[in-house]
C-alpha cells in the first residue's frame, strides 16, 4: 500500500499529461466534425442525385468500417503507398492524423443524426415560413434550426459520450493519450514498471468526464424544454 502512495503522484502527473492529449483530440474532433457533419448531411439530402448518392456511399463506408482501420489507413497510407509520410513521425504528426480520422468518422455519424433531425421537422414549418416571406436561410436559421437542435440533443449526447471513450482508439497509432500513459507503467516508465493499476485508473478519468458531459446535456435538454416540437 505504501508503494501505491509512493507511485501515485508520478502516475497521476503522467496520466494528466495523457488525458490532456485525450481532451485535445476530443475537442478538436468536435470542432471539426460538428460543422462538417452538417455539410455532409446537406450533401446526402441534396436534390442533385449524383451528389447525394456519392455522399451516402461515403457515409456508408465510413460508418461501415472500424474506426481503428480508418486510423491506421490515414496514418500509414501516405507513407507506405505514396512514399510520402505527410504526418511525420512525431507526436504532433500522430495527433494530426488521429484528428483527421476522428473528424471524418464522427462527421459521418453526426450527419445522419442531423439528417434525421432536419427531415423530422414538419413540412408545415417550411410552408408557413414561405408564405410569410422568409428566405430559405432565414427559414433554416430562424425557424428550423432550434427545433432540430432540440430533437437531436439526446442522440448527439449519446454519440459525443461515445467519442470520449473512442479517443482511446488513437492508442493504435501510438498517440500518447491517457491509455498510452496508463499502459506505459506496465512495461516501465518514470522508474515504475510492472504496474497495471494506472491503466485501470484511467477509467476514473473517462467516468468523470462522461459524467460531466451527461450533466451538461441534461441541462441543455432542460433548457430547451420550454417548447414542444
Amino acid at each position, binding site marked *: 500500500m505504501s508503494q501505491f502512495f509512493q507511485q501515485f503522484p508520478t502516475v497521476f502527473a503522467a496520466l494528466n499529461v495523457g488525458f490532456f492529449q485525450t481532451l485535445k483530440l476530443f475537442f478538436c474532433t468536435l470542432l471539426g466534425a460538428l460543422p462538417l457533419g452538417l455539410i455532409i448531411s446537406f450533401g446526402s439530402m441534396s436534390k442533385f442525385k449524383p451528389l447525394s448518392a456519392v455522399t451516402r456511399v461515403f457515409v456508408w463506408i465510413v460508418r461501415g468500417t472500424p474506426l481503428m482501420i480508418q486510423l491506421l489507413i490515414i496514418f500509414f497510407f501516405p507513407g507506405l503507398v505514396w512514399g510520402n509520410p505527410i504526418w511525420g513521425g512525431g507526436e504532433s504528426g500522430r495527433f494530426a492524423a488521429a484528428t483527421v480520422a476522428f473528424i471524418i468518422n464522427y462527421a459521418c455519424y453526426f450527419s445522419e443524426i442531423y439528417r434525421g433531425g432536419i427531415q423530422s421537422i*414538419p413540412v*408545415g*414549418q417550411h*410552408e*408557413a415560413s*414561405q*408564405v*410569410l*416571406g*422568409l*428566405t*430559405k436561410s*432565414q427559414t433554416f436559421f*430562424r*425557424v428550423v434550426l*432550434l*427545433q432540430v437542435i*432540440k430533437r437531436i440533443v439526446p442522440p448527439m449526447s449519446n454519440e459525443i459520450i461515445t467519442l470520449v471513450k473512442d479517443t482511446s482508439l488513437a492508442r493504435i497509432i501510438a498517440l500518447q493519450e491517457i491509455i498510452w500513459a496508463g499502459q506505459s507503467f506496465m512495461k516501465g516508465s518514470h522508474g515504475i514498471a510492472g504496474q497495471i493499476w494506472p491503466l485501470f485508473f484511467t477509467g476514473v478519468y473517462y467516468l468523470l468526464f462522461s459524467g460531466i458531459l451527461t450533466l451538461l446535456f441534461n441541462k441543455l435538454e432542460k433548457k430547451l424544454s*420550454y*417548447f*414542444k*416540437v
Partner: protein
Amino acid sequence: MAILEVSNIHKSFGKTEVLKGISFSLEKGNVLSIIGSSGSGKTTLLRCINFLETADVGRITVDGDVIFDSDTQAKLSAKEKRDKQLKIGLVFQQFNLFPQYNVLDNVTLAPRLRAKELPDYKKNKKQIIAEIEEKAKALLAKMGLSDKLENYPCELSGGQQQRVSIARAMALEPKILFFDEPTSALDPELTGEILKVIRELAEEHMTMVIVTHEMSFAKDVSDHIVFMDQGVIAEEGRADEVFDNPQSERLKAFLNNINT
C-alpha cells in the same frame, strides 16, 4: 375592379390532372368560400395561389398586379417571388405556429425580418421594431389574446393557436387572406371561436377566400361560393343562390350528402 383574378389554372401531379382550368374572381371586401368533396382540387387550388405549388398553366392577379404567370414565373428572382407572395396571406389547417417562439414573436418574426430590408432600418431600428410590436399587440388584442403574449404555442388550445396564426398572417397586411380548412383540426366547441373571428373580419370587409367543410358557416359568411368537383368549378354564384337553389346535379348531390 376585382381584387383577385384567377384565370385558367392547370395543375397536374404526374399524369393526374388535379386542376383543369380554374378561373374565378373576387371583389374587394368580399368573402369567397370554396366548397367541394375531398379530392375535388380545392386545397391544390389554394396552394397554387399561395405559391406552395407551382401551377403548370395560368395567371393570378391581385389588385392589378400579376403575382403569378406560368409563362414568366421561371424568370423571377426569389425576392420578386417573395414580394408577390406577400400580397396574400394564408392560414393553415394545422396552424403551423413556430413552437420555439412565444405568441408575440410568432406574429412579429416575419415583419421584423422583412423590416431589415428597409433602407432606413439601421437608423430607425428601435422605432421600426416598436411599431411592429404595437401592431402585433393590437392584432392579438383583436383576437382576444392580449393575456397570452408571452405564452408558447404548446401552452395554448387549438382555437387559441389558430387565432395566433390568423394574427400572424395579418401582420404582413396582405390584401387577401386565405384560409385552408381553418377549423378542420379543431374540436367542435373550438370551431365556433374561429368562425366568430372570421365573421368579424368579414364585417370589417377583409377580403377572404376560405376553403371549408362548414357549409352553414360558408353560407352565412360568404358573398360568393365556388363549388369544385373533379378539378373544375362545377358551379358558382351568390351564397344564398348556390345553397338554396343549386343548378348542377353534382352540387345537388354534394349538398344532399352533407345534409344527411
